[in-house]
């Protein structure tokens, strides 16, 4: 594999992980967060500090920093999840920006705005691929269980969810923590891939990108989120010359999706071979049936 292809594959993989987290939060629980880049930053800086300053091996460093992201989300969630929709979004936005500014400010530990340098390059294709597979299976099994149904109930109708015995606050908190763990995980892979990080990489635009990718891919669909990430990560690679227009193109894409396909590319359903087969069957079996009908009438 050429190093360019490997680089793109790693980037794609860690974006998938971060977007899957947002997908559980936004697609399945209908909570919008503009602070997930903050959790990525915690994972990225956390793991970099652990590997460079404390000599902790890479995999434990990923686990510890992702878990720490989750812990922060638990605390933030306890304070902010009682807020209604838009206000929660503003709170997460504030959180993401505070993390960025904080990391720029504590220069002795993080290298400040000039960045954290000389991070060993531990992330490779295999670690990323295995991470993606684990992240996807975990998310899939979560969504297709009692817990996932609780999340979906919160998304659909909160008052009714409470009325059938679902602790909506706990469900929201769980979704928020999982999205933060995924973001921290992706962040840890990110810093050990680039070997150099600055707080500016985890700005509001990055958070927005994660949410936009989820919306383009389709809310309420994990495979849709993967598909969305493929598009959003690979298209800019193919059209390098348009790279500076990226945010503009995102904006247009979101407007186009909202107008043309409000549920996203794959909203509220999963990619399924069976459905495609049954669709094809319908198309091909219908035609002869009509013919048979005519024959019957003739005889």
């Amino acid at each position, binding site marked *: 594999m050429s190093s360019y292809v490997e680089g793109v594959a790693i980037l794609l993989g860690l974006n998938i992980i971060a977007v899957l987290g947002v997908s559980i939060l936004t697609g399945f629980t209908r909570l919008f967060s503009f602070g997930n880049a903050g959790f990525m930053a915690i994972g990225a800086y956390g793991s970099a500090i652990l590997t460079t300053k404390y000599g902790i091996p890479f995999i434990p460093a990923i686990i510890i920093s992702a878990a720490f992201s989750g812990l922060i989300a638990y605390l933030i969630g306890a304070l902010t999840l009682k807020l209604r929709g838009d206000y929660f979004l503003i709170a997460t936005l504030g959180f993401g920006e505070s993390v960025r500014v904080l990391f720029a400010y504590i220069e002795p530990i993080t290298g400040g705005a000039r960045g954290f340098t000389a991070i060993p390059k531990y992330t490779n294709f295999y670690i990323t691929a295995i991470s993606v597979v684990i992240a996807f299976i975990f998310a899939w099994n979560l969504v297709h269980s*009692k817990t996932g149904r609780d999340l979906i109930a919160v998304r659909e109708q909160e008052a009714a969810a*409470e009325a059938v015995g679902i602790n*909506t606050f706990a469900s929201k908190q769980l979704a928020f923590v999982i999205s933060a763990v995924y973001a921290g995980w992706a962040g840890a892979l990110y810093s050990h891939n680039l070997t150099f990080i600055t707080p500016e990489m985890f700005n509001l635009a990055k958070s927005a990108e994660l949410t936009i990718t989820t919306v383009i891919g389709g809310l309420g669909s994990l495979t849709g989120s993967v598909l969305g990430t493929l598009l959003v990560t690979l298209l800019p690679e193919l059209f390098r010359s348009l790279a500076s227009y990226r945010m503009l193109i995102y904006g247009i894409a979101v407007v186009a999706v909202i107008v043309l396909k409000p549920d996203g590319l794959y909203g509220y359903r999963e990619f399924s071979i069976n459905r495609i087969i049954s669709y094809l069957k319908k198309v091909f079996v219908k035609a002869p049936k009509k013919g048979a009908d005519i024959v019957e009438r003739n005889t």
Partner: protein
Amino acid sequence: MNEILKIEKLSKYFGGVKAVHNFNLSLQEGKIHGLIGPNGAGKTTIFNLITGIYKPMDGNIIFCNQDITGKKPYSIARLGIGRTFQNIKLFANLTALQNVIIAGNQDITYNLLESFLRTVKFRKEEKSLREKAMMLLETVGLADMADKMASNLPYGHQRKLEIARALALNPRLLLLDEPAAGMNTEESKELVTFIYDIKERFNLTILIIEHHMDVISNLCDECTVLNFGETICRGCPSTVKRDRLVIEAYLGEEYVC
């Protein structure tokens, strides 16, 4: 006979408005009790107080000898109080079957780890939950619409689906908020039989808000009439219908003639 629900001196004001004032109720197991009264009398507020959506300012709510005053809605639901809503609140973008399955979630005992490992217990519980949901859809006559999106069902079916969803909780007490709204005489007659059947079949006690007086008189053992948050009359429907205050406040003179 057992007292399943006891409400004492329940009050809730919204600013200066006395939505519910000094409301008392004693409901015996297996009975059907009606709440009637003009719009804004505080009937739905009482439901919201019982189910924990509002916190009462004063008074106690005792369900099965347990004080549930001020508890969270989800824990009250788990104790066995199911409800429907006046303005239907279904999980609109899910199928009818999924709506009922979600409400049956409380039957499930597998933990997160077991669901990730897809253990035998996980598969067994998921299967029996699905069967239970299908059985409930059959009970309310929606079995053939299991895969239809809830928001695409006709209005009457949506009401039935809400009842099926409430039943999936295995409730002991069912609160029905205007189940006959928008129905004609024929349909509301059917509804009376239907409600009576599910009450017998699932050993329910029912508290029902309704404006159709024929539904109330055919179904209820007793009923309470509210006006501006105050209880103005209580008794069996035939007595209540002849009460002077009730006629003035709610039924109107024409009803008597």
